[in-house]
Every structure is written in C-alpha cells, then in structure tokens.
C-alpha cells in the first residue's frame, strides 16, 4: 500500500461515483471535484461526458490554477454558454454527478452558501450558490464534500437554505420528474449516504483508522450508524500515480486542505511552479 493523504482518498471515493451516464457540468476550477472526474475518466469511466467552463465534451486535463480553463477547451468537442448548458443539461435531466461544497450542510441535504447571521445584515456574507440552488436537486447523484468534517459545517439545520436536494427517495424523486439517486457526503473522516426522504444519513464507511463515534461527534445532524461500519476503500497505487504524476502534479487538490499562512505559502509555491513552466517556453 502506497502512503497517501486523506485528500487523495477523498478524490478516489468521489471518482468512484463518476460513471458514463449523463453529463456533468463542473463550472469553475474546484480542484477536488476536477481531480475526481479526471481520475474517473482515466480509469473506469473514459467516456464520462464533462463540461468545464464553457467547454463541452472535454478530454481529461492536467490540473493547475492558471491552466485548467485553457486545458478544458483544448480537447473539447463543443462550446456553449451558461444558458445553453442550463437548458440542455441541468433542466433536461441529463445531469449525472454534481459535486458541491458549502459553508453549511444539513441532514436534509440543504446547503447554505448565502449567509451566517441575518440575511439582510449578515455576520458573514457568503459567496452565494451560483446554480447550486437549482442544480443539486436536478442531478442524478449529489455529492457534497468537506475537507474538515465538523459540526460547524455539518449542522442540524442550515441557517439559510440556499438550495436543497428537495426530494431524496427514489420514488419521490421520480414523482417530481427527477432522476432517482442518492446524496453522498465525502469528508476527511467518512462517507455518509442518504437515499430516503424520511431516513437520516447513514455512515456508509469510515476512512481507515477513524472511529465511527468520532464521525457522530463531529456531525451536527443525526446519523444512522450500522453495527458494522465498513472501511472506505483506499486509493490504489495506480490511482495515486495517476493523480500525482498526470492529473495533479502541481498539487492543487491539497491546497483546500490547508489553512492560514501555510495555505497562502502553498498557493504561492504552486503558482511559482506554474509561472516557471510557462516562462521557460518564451524566455
């Protein structure tokens, strides 16, 4: 077993959900989600149909902060704008897997990307949800990922519902004209799943070395804890090699797992490497 970091396990776990049914719009460069899709595309789901930025039908790309957008266009078969993507993918039930993160997330599958504190006079004005308010309900699978599993993020009820899965169970989703599919939460500690409206999330697996009780203690909503909790599959050597040498050689995914001063320095070092590679071609 090759040694790995937890963000690498999260990437492989999210990648495992990516299949070749439907289309996924990734939008802006979010390293963990991008890495997961690229890993899937290079392994078990080569024909996963992806759109990044306005590049539709992308080839897999190498991740970088300054190059991901340009790379997305290089192997793509089509160009659309946001509105065409909305109408041709999201709202027409062609959406496959939607991966989001948020400031708060609760046991109903609701996300808060709007506000901490009163909406009109917020303590923290969050960035807003972009299309998440509508999209997380439309896609077949919703994946929420969090690098820091904490009851401050995984809360009992979000302070403000920016968007929500709305219908969760297969039958209630079908009745609402939505594709049936689960909510899957992937964190640095565990994987949680919810696939019925009136049942809580259950712990699907804990990562190696994590006690299920630690997961419960750090989750603000009720969890169904099976008597025998499986352990999350670890990344394979092949997956790690693909991630480290092909998909994310600059290490963009790790960035979101750092904080404070370390975070800024890490970003500077990645950007320095990206600059030098480009500069070498013109100097």
């Amino acid at each position, binding site marked *: 077993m090759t040694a790995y970091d937890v963000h690498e396990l999260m990437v492989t776990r999210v990648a495992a959900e990516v299949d070749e049914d439907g289309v996924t719009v990734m939008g802006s460069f979010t390293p963990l989600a991008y890495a997961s899709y690229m890993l899937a*595309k290079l392994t078990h789901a080569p024909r996963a149909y992806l759109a990044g*930025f*306005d590049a539709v039908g992308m080839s897999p790309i190498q991740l970088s902060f300054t190059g991901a957008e340009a790379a997305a266009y290089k192997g793509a078969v089509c160009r659309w704008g946001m509105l065409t993507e909305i109408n041709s993918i999201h*709202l027409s039930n062609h959406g496959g897997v939607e991966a989001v993160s948020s400031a708060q997330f609760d046991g109903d599958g609701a996300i808060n990307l709007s506000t901490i504190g009163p909406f009109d006079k917020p303590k923290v004005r969050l960035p807003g949800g972009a299309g998440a308010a509508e999209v997380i309900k439309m896609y077949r699978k919703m994946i929420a990922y969090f690098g820091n599993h904490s009851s401050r993020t995984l809360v009992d009820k979000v302070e403000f519902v920016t968007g929500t899965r709305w219908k969760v169970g297969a039958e209630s989703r079908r009745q609402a004209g939505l594709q049936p599919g689960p909510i899957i939460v992937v964190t640095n500690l565990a994987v949680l799943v919810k696939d019925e409206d009136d049942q809580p999330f259950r712990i699907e697996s804990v990562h190696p070395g994590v006690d299920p009780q630690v997961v419960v203690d750090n989750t603000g909503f009720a969890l169904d804890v099976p008597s025998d909790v499986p352990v999350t599959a670890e990344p394979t050597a092949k997956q790690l090699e693909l991630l480290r040498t092909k998909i994310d050689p600059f290490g963009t995914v790790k960035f979101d797992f750092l904080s404070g001063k370390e975070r800024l320095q890490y970003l500077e070092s990645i950007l320095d490497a990206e600059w030098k590679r480009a500069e070498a071609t013109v100097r």
Partner: protein
Amino acid sequence: MTSPSADKVVPLQALGGLVPDGASVAFGGGWFANHPMAAVRQLIRAGRKDLHAITVVGSVDMDLLAAADVLGHLSFSMVTLEAFGLAPNVRRTIESGTLPFTEYTGLGMLIGLEAQGRGMPFLPYRGPFGSDLPARYPEIYATTNCPFTGEELTAVRALQPDVAIVHALRCDAEGNAQWDGTSGPDVDMAKAAKRVIVTCEEIVDRPVIVENPHMTKLPGYYVHAVIEAPFGAHPTSHIPRYAMDAWQLMDYAGQAGTDAITDYVARIRSESEDDYRARVLTGRGDVLAALVDVAETLEGANL
C-alpha cells in the same frame, strides 16, 4: 429595436459617457474568466456612482467596483475570489449594510435574462424548490402552473439591464462579436439589455468575422458601441489569448481587505488603461499567454 448600421467603434475613454450614474449594468464573464475589467477600471476612472451591477458569478470585477464605491446595488448569484477567499469589499459593504443587494439563484438570473431577450415578461422552469431565496423576492420569483399538466413551476421575471458590458475576442465595426473560449452569460446579458457595449481584444474587418461565422455568438444588431481593449479581461482570463493573472489577483486579494485598497483604487483612477497595461503587463504578458499554450490535456481517454 436597435440599428444594425454604422460604425460603432469608440475609444475606451468614451465608456463613462455611455453609462449614466444609477444605471443597471450587467457585467459579463464568470469565475476568473473574461470579466470586462478594462471597462470596470474605466467606470471607476469616470467616477460613476450608484450603478446597479448585475453578475452571475462575479469575482474581482465586483469587488473592485465595491472598493471604489461605484455600486448602489448588487444583484448576483455568486461573488467569490475562489482560491483567494471571499470578496472582501463586497463582504464589507454588504455586512455593514451600505450596499443593498439581491441574491439570485444562478439559473433564475440567467433565465430572467433569457426571458427579456426573447420578448417574454417571464419564463417558467423547474426552479429552486426548497430554497429560502424565492420567498425573499416575490417580485422576481413566483409560482405558475402548466396549463396542460397542472405541474407547479417556478416563474422568474424578465430581467432587463439598462446596459450590458461584455468582453469578446474580436468584433467588427458593425458589432458582430466573437468568442472562442469562455463566454459565460455574455450573450444572454447582451440580448436582454437596452444597450450593449462590447469591449474586445481586437477590432477586425468584417471578412475576418465572415471566415469564422460559427464563432459569432452576438450579431451586430444588438450592439451599440465597440471598444478595443487588449488584455481587457485582465487580471481575469481571456481564452485563448491569456490565462488569469493569479499573481495580480493574489496581490489584489492581499490588499482588498485592508486600508491599502484605498491606494490601489487611487492608482487605477489616476492612470490610463495604457498606463495600466504598461505597469502590470510589461515583461509578463507573454507569460500569461504562454500559460494558455502549456496547459495540457491528458492522453488515455476518449480514445
């Protein structure tokens, strides 16, 4: 109705005169891609006030406008500096209560723009059911039913900006505008607005447009003014010309939440766009272009 005729080319310096104080202005681009930043800087230089900015996914464009006290209202579905954090000046002005705002859902804003662009007072869609946002804005979101099936749907009201400002790859004097990479919400903002200003990397003759007709996302009959602004999206990207300038963005983010932002804005105000380019791009522009060239796809899939 617009006139498709005549030479619409004006200098960037004329922009301030085309956007009155208090106007609602949709700004194109999304994420760190293709915001009309030369126009943003010029509106600051022109001393515009009380603009109602409309953005789908804004970033440094909105934060800089907020820092320079240009905004009277902000309609958005997201504003973020992504890896560089939340947008400090948008946060500050909203949290202090000095910037009135409207938070749209992303699809709602785009479909509202679409409605206006196709002559509809509203459009229905399967909306953000369960979200707390629609109830806050009954003048924007309502419920409607399919007259055939009875299905309950969300109606979103048409959104008509006074002005749309978008940044294109190239454009001719008639206003026929082309994009190759990210166009985001640009075309639908333009179709919805009363007046459209296109800034572009390069003004070209009509035959260049005719040679690449599939890249013309916005025909000239929509466009009122064409402005040549090379590196006009900087420090955001314009693919395939140049990548986002992450270093300038990091510099901005470092100052934006501090008192240093006052000097940052003052410098923008005091220099021309030529000065700006000379200051931030000398010895760097070619590397920003090279970042596009070196970006890699990976072999082994789509075989």
